């Protein structure tokens, strides 16, 4: 990446003021960062500490709130419902994320290739679903999935098809994957496209003088330049998968029999708190999921940068 940064005009024109202004050590910077840090402490650091605190206690019928050490963690690690939900989002992440990122990558390369008619229309149209709230997206797709009155029902009637119920137990995860894919292809595409746009044109000129074709340019110039963006998109998608909540929770009222209260870890934590009043256990689940996500995000990041030349 250093090569790219130094090629950008600012690095060249300003000849080196990349490092922050050097002056006597003073606290002026704090005046700027302090407001952010105050709110940050209140809404991020404090809840983390609070949930760690909660996870070591247990509300008991006799004796009230008492310290139980790692008992909640022990319970979670042997909780079949928790592991079922973790397994489900892992499957989701393994299947949905590569499909979504693959399509987004293809679209970004296609738009950047200058071989498309109306490329800016394509860019905006594919990006548009990102602006649609998850609630609306899920309600729309949920209606369309309907086998009785929805679009799937229409198609079955019209063509005498037998499309299985998208919200039935064998298809519901794929149907949720479709909604999430629909929402986030455009976002990832823009992430990749922005990375492609900063590749200096000289590189393409040099490559075509050397007789490199479009696919060779993609492999040797574009893909290496895209790697950081792919890593970022990957990390966001990992976090998103393990946080899966909105889509299944909204679809639940349409498919109460196939979407359980522990469909995803996040739904499990939510239902433990708000339906079961098991706040301490819920906080424990949240912490375990958070640690799990952080570890996987770290692995994704490392596997991405390791390959960097």
């Amino acid at each position, binding site marked *: *990446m250093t090569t790219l*940064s130094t090629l*950008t*005009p600012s690095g060249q*024109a*300003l000849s080196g003021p990349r490092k*922050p*202004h050097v002056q006597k050590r003073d606290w002026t*910077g704090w*005046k*700027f*960062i302090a*407001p952010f*840090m105050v709110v*940050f402490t209140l809404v*991020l650091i404090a*809840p*983390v500490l609070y*949930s760690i605190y*909660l996870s070591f206690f247990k509300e008991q019928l006799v004796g009230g709130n008492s310290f139980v050490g790692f008992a909640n963690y022990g319970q979670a690690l042997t909780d079949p419902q928790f592991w079922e939900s973790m397994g489900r989002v892992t499957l989701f992440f393994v299947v949905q994320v590569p499909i979504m990122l693959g399509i987004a990558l293809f679209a970004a390369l*296609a738009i950047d*290739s*200058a071989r*498309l*008619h109306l490329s800016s*229309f394509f860019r*905006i149209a*594919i990006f*548009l679903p990102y*602006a*649609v*709230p998850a*609630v*609306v*997206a899920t*309600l729309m797709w949920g209606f*369309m999935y309907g086998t009785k009155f929805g*679009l799937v029902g*229409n198609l079955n009637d*019209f063509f005498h098809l037998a499309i299985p119920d998208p919200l039935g137990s064998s298809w519901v995860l794929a149907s949720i994957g479709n909604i999430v894919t629909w929402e986030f*292809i*455009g976002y990832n595409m*823009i*992430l990749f496209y*922005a*990375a492609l746009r*900063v590749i*200096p*044109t000289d590189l393409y000129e040099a490559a075509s003088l050397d007789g490199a074709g479009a696919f060779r340019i993609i492999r040797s110039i574009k893909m290496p330049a895209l790697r950081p963006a792919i890593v970022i998109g990957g*990390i966001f998608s990992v976090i998103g998968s393990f*946080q899966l*909540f909105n889509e299944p929770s909204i679809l639940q*009222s*349409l498919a109460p029999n196939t979407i359980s209260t522990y469909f995803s870890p996040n739904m499990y934590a*939510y239902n433990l708190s708000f339906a079961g009043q098991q*706040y301490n256990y*819920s906080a424990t689940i949240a912490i375990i999921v*958070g640690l799990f*996500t*952080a570890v996987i995000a770290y692995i994704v990041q490392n596997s991405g940068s390791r390959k960097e030349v």
Partner: protein
Amino acid sequence: MSTTDQARVNVPASQARAPRMSRYTRTNKSNQGLHTKKSILLTIIMGALVLYSLLPLFWLFVNSTKTQAELLNSFGLWFSGPNALWDNIVATVTYNDGVFVRWFGNTLMYVVVGAGGATFLAALGGYGLAKFNFPGKKAVFAVVLGAVAIPGTALAVPTFLMFSQMGLTNTPWAVILPSLISPFGLYLIWTYALDAVPTEVLEAARMDGAGEFRTFFTISLKLLAPGLVTVLLFTLVATWNNYFLPLIMLSEPTWYPLTVGLKQWSNQAQTVGGDVIYNLVITGSMLTIIPIVVAFLFLQRYWQSGLAAGSVKA
């Protein structure tokens, strides 16, 4: 936009220009584009992707023109029966003493205060990180970047418990306060400010005796404009579409944003004996996405500049 803003600043144009304004970066009609011929096949494949992206929105529009009865008895992807769009809109905004309008106002407030505040805090903080050395700066980096890895929604339950002890739940603050923090926005402004605000300009301002905040508000903010718009759009979409946080924080419909309200209507339609108002859910959904889609289309061209700055250094 940035050109006129920068013209007002007393620095050589070569230094003031934003990273994107460069002969190294391509515009649409690049020389890459002039040599390549258009591909029909690629256009068709991408056309299919566009169809996939726009089809649900078309479905939503078509069905917002139908009556409740037609909704259940006609083909989903084409118009049917009398055009009930206007009736549906009127029914949506007047249902239950106009609660939809109330939710719309709430959403607007959460967006203006939440997204506006988040962008402002990120701008101040990112600029501070980019342009000043101060004790504890490394710790700030570590903590903020570490926090990005923590899944936000996993924190929602503890945040709810904490807020309820502070008496903040069921007030707008419970929704606004967490929206004020955008670590991604902070990161973006930080990387953007490194290049977009030349240190020489700040030194010149200091020589003239301007205070740091005055310099920030009169000079730096303008130079940061493309980055700010990018952050504003991300936070705008995030707050307009926020569902999980208000869902757990608010128990009374008075403070609901549109997203939570629509979900409540949809639930009501599925409850036995509940008032079946699918047409209102659909029309309400359409009314919910119109403002954000308009804002999005209007501002989307500014996105890339800011995003590009972020992705180069990622």
